[in-house]
């Protein structure tokens, strides 16, 4: 840790430094790139810098965050990461660091309860068997709830910095589109059309809908469709509220209170997602404040002298006999070849990393923070501190 700290950059250069004026940090990137670890480390870096209350939020499952912080479990109520434990790991913080898991279900329930015109309406929605499905698996519902919870916490103002790592989406952009999607979903014309005529045997009177509803009944069984229709009618009562909130959330995400940090590894697939993500953030006019390239290979693998030597080891036919003579024992060509070849393989990966990194920096418009690949998983506090020092 101390070795890294000695090489730490000056205040304004670090990512944590650049994010000091921001209330909300959204870490995004595709699944498996170490988003949760990076957001926990960023939280630690913020708490180390100054006397502030930092809350790191994660989505279910929270174990990744708990492991990173060396805690057994993290619940939906923020828990403080104890100073004593941090001190034990050699970390001194000025501020306080909290961690919590986002509680999607109760956030959704709260939203419905708040926006429904009456308690009875709210209860009817909450009890519907489709509601469970919606709050659980509606495409973007996790993303939307993450944003909703973030908005609530930001409004409450109990923390100086909120850091959220976005849910592992099929599409990393789901959460940007989630508010719009929910609005569309609750407000679509089709649903009012469906909700209207299906009540009390009225649907036979609806000429256009007749054959269609007949078909749907054949497919799904009659009760499913009327249940859906009733549920839709109830949902529409909260439409106005959802629409207003979606506007507010978008406004927050575009404001200078928020900073996006894109996290990626330099593997082709997640890297491609990250590139796409950066460009879409720009399109949405949402502030990209930093890019983190995680698990990069060391620069020593790009050394020119080592490259020439590795090539000689792998390919120079005369080298084995020359070395045998010099060292006074037989040097097998196979041994030399495997030395050179193995290094060249890693070299090729390091070269690719470097090329990708260059592209990423052009896209992000700033120097990417490189977090080197550590040979052990940085799963406990000391590992986290090592990453925090680089942020």
């Amino acid at each position, binding site marked *: 840790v101390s070795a890294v700290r000695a090489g730490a950059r000056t205040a304004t250069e670090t990512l944590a430094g650049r994010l000091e004026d921001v209330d909300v940090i959204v870490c995004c990137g595709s*699944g*498996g*790139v170490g988003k949760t670890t990076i957001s926990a480390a960023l939280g630690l870096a913020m708490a180390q810098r100054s006397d502030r209350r930092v809350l790191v939020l994660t989505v279910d499952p929270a*174990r*990744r965050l708990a492991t990173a912080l060396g805690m057994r479990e993290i619940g939906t109520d923020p828990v403080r990461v104890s100073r004593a434990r941090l001190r034990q790991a050699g970390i001194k913080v000025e501020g306080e660091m909290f961690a919590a898991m986002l509680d999607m279900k109760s956030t959704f329930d709260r939203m419905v309860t708040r926006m429904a015109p009456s308690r009875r309406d709210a209860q009817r929605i909450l009890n519907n068997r*489709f509601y469970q*499905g*919606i709050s*659980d*698996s509606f495409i973007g519902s996790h993303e939307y709830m993450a944003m909703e919870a973030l908005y609530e916490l930001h409004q409450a103002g109990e923390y100086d910095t909120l850091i959220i790592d976005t849910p592992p*989406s*099929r599409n990393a952009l789901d959460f940007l589109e989630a508010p719009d999607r929910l609005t569309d979903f609750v407000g*679509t014309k*089709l*649903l009012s*059309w*469906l909700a209207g005529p299906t009540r009390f045997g009225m649907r036979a009177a609806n000429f256009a809908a007749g*054959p269609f509803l007949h078909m749907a*009944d*054949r*497919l*799904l*069984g009659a*009760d*499913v469709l009327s249940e*859906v229709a009733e549920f*839709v009618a109830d949902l529409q009562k909260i439409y106005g509220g959802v629409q207003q909130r979606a506007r507010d959330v978008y406004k927050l995400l575009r404001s200078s209170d928020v900073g996006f940090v894109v996290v990626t590894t330099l*593997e*082709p*697939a*997640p890297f491609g997602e990250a590139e796409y993500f950066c460009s879409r953030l720009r399109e949405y006019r949402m502030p990209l404040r930093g890019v983190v390239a995680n698990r990069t290979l060391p620069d*020593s693998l790009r*050394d020119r*002298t*080592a490259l020439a*030597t*590795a090539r*000689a*080891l792998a390919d120079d036919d005369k*080298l084995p006999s*020359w*070395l045998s003579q010099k*060292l006074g024992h037989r*040097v*097998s060509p196979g*041994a*030399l070849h*495997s*030395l*050179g070849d*193995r*290094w060249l*393989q*890693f070299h090729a*990966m390091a*070269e690719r990393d470097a090329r990708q990194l260059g592209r990423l920096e052009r896209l992000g418009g700033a120097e990417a923070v490189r977090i080197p*690949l550590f*040979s*052990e*998983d940085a799963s406990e506090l000391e590992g986290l501190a090592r990453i925090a020092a680089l942020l």
Partner: protein
Amino acid sequence: VPSRLRATLPPCWRQRALPARKRGSAPTAASLNELLERRILFVAGKGGTGKTTTAAALCLLAAQRGKEVLGVDVDAKGDLAVALGSKGTSFKAEVVQPGVSVLALHAEQSFQEYLNIYFKVPRLARMTPLSKVFDFIATAVPGPRDMLVVGKVAFEERRRDDSRRPVWDLIVVDCGATGHILAQLSAARSMLELVRGGLIRGQIEWIDRVISDGRRTAAVLTALPEEMPVVETIELYGEIAKRRTVHVAMSVLNRMPPEPLPTAARRVLADVATADESVRQRVPGVAHIGADLEFAERLRTSAEAQARRLRAGIGVPVVEVPLISVRTGLATTRAVAAVLHESAGATA
């Protein structure tokens, strides 16, 4: 590092692995040949764990054994076709390699095709409200969208040619990323809970039977030798075993760092370090190379610990695929296929 990781392995995982191991040694245990004798293989795992390459490699291996193979790209991004050396995929199956065809799944199109096949619904304008309602239901309840994926696969499995032979000997499904794997695999069952009547029910029951029949269908779980991917694969395995949705036959652990250097190579490193000036001038970078390779060996050590953890946590064979440097597309797929052929064939 390895001993510490082993010591922290929760005891409950080992317990959970016990009954599973019994299943693993049952007649359906996985060697590569047995695996490829199945009719449907689901390749599942977290994003970035090498699902697509593994699925593509299995397609090649089956084709090499003279089978007619269909690869199904669930995410419809066309990645599976690219891994098999083609540009992209369409909704209709296209031949990408000798014996291998690929199709991409698209929920809307699957739905229309479904109606067309089973209910003789023409593809008319009238479809619009129906597919919108479908969209709503697919959004509101888990099941239908994933059901279409599984339903399409089951439909392809049932297809016969003029001489009543199956059109496809093997169907390899490259499952969607993150979290949706279980939903896809158990879609049929959750649909059964939702749909209490209607024409669909009989079909869903049939699909559920195909998926859960270990002789016809199996799943291959991909993982990386890192802490979280391994933990998550063990969890996924546990979930699948608990719900008994599908038989897990094998796990592929991708991107294993290379094995430790041979002793002879180590000796060269040591000797050159203490050799005279002329040697160090001829191979000036050897010390540097040695240090880098030592770093690589530390990666290997922690990867091995994770591999052990995976083996202890799941009751099926784990096949390790080495880190393959920067080749892409078909070249990588071929390399992975060769490794699977050697190592999975040998575990038989």
